[in-house]
Each structure stands twice: as structure tokens, then as C-alpha cells.
């Protein structure tokens, strides 16, 4: 993908026709992997993300276990074919950092103290990437945690805001991330207004930054509704199956 001349057209619409504060089409499905204790699949624009949760379970190696709570482990990983140039399957420095910040984003929501001496392992696989995969990964992983029956304070949901051609925009796709002026991924527990992930790259004044995080939080709240629907859908399906 080479650099486009402009990221916004004369009408102020984005390359994929979206308005400045418009989310990409989003689709979620819960409980789709047979082996995992919990799993979810998400499509957000061209992003395709799979998350699985195993646990709570015995910790290996044992010396990592904590006497008073579970340990939460997280692996964010991109499939070699998920991006334009084939990615080596060995974890890159970027993937290692993102695994850490995603774990930090999810951990505030999980009641780890309910499961001492165990581990809860989260695996996020980016099957196709088009910008905002860390946010998509968090949103998906939260569903997988819920599907695994892990008690949580609230779902965690993530969305980025940013800036392109001088305007603040919501839910950046790859080209906007790469050639825009700023990217502010944010994760939160909407129920208690707690920001659990915040990063920023680019250049923003304090005022712009304030507006960007408001915009991102608004995006989060919308995605949160889709998350809840997806969980309900699974629950309804399961219930119907049970009643049959």
C-alpha cells in the first residue's frame, strides 16, 4: 500500500467512505473454538481476530504460581499471512510489547483473587490485520474471558481515535494509522469509566488529545453494546439448545 494523496475527501469522508466519527462494520461471535475454555471471533472492517482462553488451570512452570491469586498471561500474535508482507511467525518486539499492554488492559477487569495458584492464559491471533488490531484483540479477548466463565468487574472494550488531514477521526484503519498525524488506542471498562489501556503516537495538542480520548471512549461504548449482544446471542442459542 503506497501513500494516498489525501486521507479525507472534499466532503470530509474517509477513504472507505466513513464519516469522521464512524466505526467500521463490526461483527462478533462467541464460543467458536471447541477446545478452548472460552473463545470469540471478531471482524472489524477487514480485521479478523480470534481469541481463546484456557484456565483457570495449574501453572507451568510451578514456581510462577502466586499464593493469593491467579496469574494472567497474554499472547498477541499475528498470522504470517495477516499482513501485506509475510510476517515471520516468531514474535516480533512489537508483538511482545502489545502482549504486555493488552494483559495490562485486561487484568483490571478480572477477579484474579478468586483463583489462587492458577493461571489464566489468553491467546489472541490476528488472522487479518487492517489497523487497530490491539484494540480489536482486547475486545475479542474480553468476550473469550466471559465465555470461559471467568468473573469480571466489567467487559473491557477498546477503540482508537486519531487524527488525519487535520481532523480527529475514530477507529483508524491501517492507512490512517500509517499516514495520519496521531493514533490514540484506548481500552476501558465502560461500566465504571476506567481506562485500562492508553497509548499515543503522533502529535496532538492537549485540547486535541482531550477530544480524542472522548471520541475513543464514545467508540468504546458503542462496541460495548455489540459485545453484550454477542454474549446474549450465545446465551440465547445455548438456552434454546438446552430447551430442545
Amino acid at each position, binding site marked *: 500500500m503506497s501513500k494516498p494523496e489525501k486521507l479525507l475527501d472534499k466532503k470530509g469522508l474517509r477513504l472507505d467512505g466513513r464519516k469522521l466519527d464512524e466505526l467500521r462494520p463490526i461483527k462478533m461471535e462467541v464460543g467458536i*473454538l471447541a477446545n478452548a475454555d472460552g473463545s470469540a471471533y471478531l471482524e472489524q472492517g*477487514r480485521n479478523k481476530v480470534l481469541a481463546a482462553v*484456557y484456565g483457570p488451570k495449574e501453572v507451568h512452570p510451578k514456581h510462577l504460581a502466586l499464593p493469593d491469586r491467579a496469574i494472567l498471561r497474554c499472547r498477541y500474535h499475528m*498470522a*504470517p*499471512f495477516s499482513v501485506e508482507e509475510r510476517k515471520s511467525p516468531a514474535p516480533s518486539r512489537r508483538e511482545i510489547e502489545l502482549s504486555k499492554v493488552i494483559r495490562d488492559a485486561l487484568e483490571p477487569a478480572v477477579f484474579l483473587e478468586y483463583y489462587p495458584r492458577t493461571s489464566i492464559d489468553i491467546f489472541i491471533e490476528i488472522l487479518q490485520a487492517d489497523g487497530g488490531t490491539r484494540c480489536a484483540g482486547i475486545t475479542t479477548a474480553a468476550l473469550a474471558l466471559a465465555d470461559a466463565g471467568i468473573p469480571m468487574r466489567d467487559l473491557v472494550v477498546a477503540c482508537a481515535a486519531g487524527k488525519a488531514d487535520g481532523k480527529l477521526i475514530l477507529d483508524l484503519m491501517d492507512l490512517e494509522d500509517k499516514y495520519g498525524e496521531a493514533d490514540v488506542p484506548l481500552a476501558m471498562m465502560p461500566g465504571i469509566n476506567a481506562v485500562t489501556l492508553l497509548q499515543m503516537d503522533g502529535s496532538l495538542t492537549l485540547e486535541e488529545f482531550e477530544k480524542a480520548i472522548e471520541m475513543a471512549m464514545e467508540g468504546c461504548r458503542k462496541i460495548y453494546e455489540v459485545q453484550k449482544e454477542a454474549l446474549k446471542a450465545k446465551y440465547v442459542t445455548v438456552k434454546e439448545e438446552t430447551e430442545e
Partner: protein
Amino acid sequence: MISSIVSKVKQKRIAQLVAKGKRLDGRALMEYREIKIEPSIIERAEGSAQVHIGKTQVLVGVKIETGEPFPDIPDQGVLTVNAELVPLASPTFEPGPPNEDAIELARIVDRGIRESKAIALEELCIQPGKKVFIVFVDVYVLNHDGNLIDASALAALTALVNTKMFNYEMKNDEIVKKPGYKPLPVRNYPVAVTFAKINDKLVVDPWLEEEHVMDARLTITTDKDGKICSIQKGGSGYFTTQQILEAAKIAKEKAAELRKLVVKT
């Protein structure tokens, strides 16, 4: 550990049933589980396919890039097959570089494609000795419920058949992309069929609990003309000559059935 996954009782039951020509999930000995094939589901890859065999789920993506040929085959493209047993797919898979199981899986898929000359690698040369196309076939196991080999080989074949390459022309020794696509030159359709030996009988397409019980495993890959192009025996048991020859015959038939799911002819 295995005993904590499949109870000893269940294992015994599986073996007893097979002796009587039956299987725990109701299949006949030479019957596959339900197969679902979804081609081209990763738009950013040049080719892709997802295959479900029962609850086993494998995604294959094909990427095509340019690079250097092997020095001893300067006028051919390069095929590279890699398999990742990502920990999402099974409680027994761990993060880290491919272990011997992942490497064996990749190499079986690789040999089926290579030995049947499925890809016309000689058509993937751009500048002899300098620049050729590299075909990366990445096998990504998403759920492991047994018989990863057949699912991976089938997904790889489907992905290759659906792979599109960009058009290009050479300008001053540089590749310049042109509009439009053409298919990857696929010339053969290798299909792997895997047998498990349980209680001295053969079954096809073993699922995970059968794999825990089986003595040995035999994969036979045949091509569109019914010729054998690759074989791999695995597992700590053995086969008799008779079993091998029986398996070869059945593999040819089963492969022909599976091939129809991918290639409409």
C-alpha cells in the same frame, strides 16, 4: 496427562469397538468426519482456505513474494511450507518455535505439494539465478481434534488452487506491478489420507481420542492420476505389508473423493 484427557475407560471402549468394525462416534472404519471447505477467507493473502474436518479446524494462507532462488535450482521459484500449532488450538500446544510435531506436519504437506509437482515452479522464475517468486504456505491450526495432516494438506491445496498472483512487467531490472491478476500455476492436486492402526485394524481420519489410542499412523498422499507421491509412517507401532498395501488402495479412492471437494472437474 493423556489419561486426564481421555479416560482409560473411553480408550478401552474405542479399541473394543474398532475390533468390531465400529467407532465411538458412529462412523464406519473408512468414513471421514464431515468436511467443510471455505476458500479465500483472508482477502489480504494471495490465497487462503479454511478446512473443518469434524471439530478439527485449519486455516492456510498463501503469500507470494519475490526473492532469490536456491543456488542449485536457479531457474525455479521457491516453495516454503510452515506450520504453526498455535496454543489457541489445544491445551497441549505451547507458544514457541515449531516443535517436532509442527515440523513433521509442515514437511508432510510440503512433500505432497512438491513431489506431485503441484506448482509449476519453473514458471515462477523472474530472472534466472537472481529473482524468483517465493510461495509461502502457512498452515495455521486453529482447533486440534485429530488428523491435522489431512486437514492441513486439504486446506493448503484449496488455498493454492485459489491463489492469485499480480501481473507485472520488468523495467530496468525492477518489477513493476500491472493491473489484474492471474492464477498461480497449479498443475496437480495432491491429497493426503491418514490411517490409524487401532487394535490391529485400520481406520481412516482418526479424531483426537482415536489418536491417543492408536498404535501407529500412516499417511499416503496420492495425486490426480492416482499415483502415490508421498508417504509418512508415524507413531510407535508398526504395520504389516498387507496393511500398507490395503491402505494404499483405499487412500487412492478416498483422495479422489476429497479432491472433488476442492477441484470441480
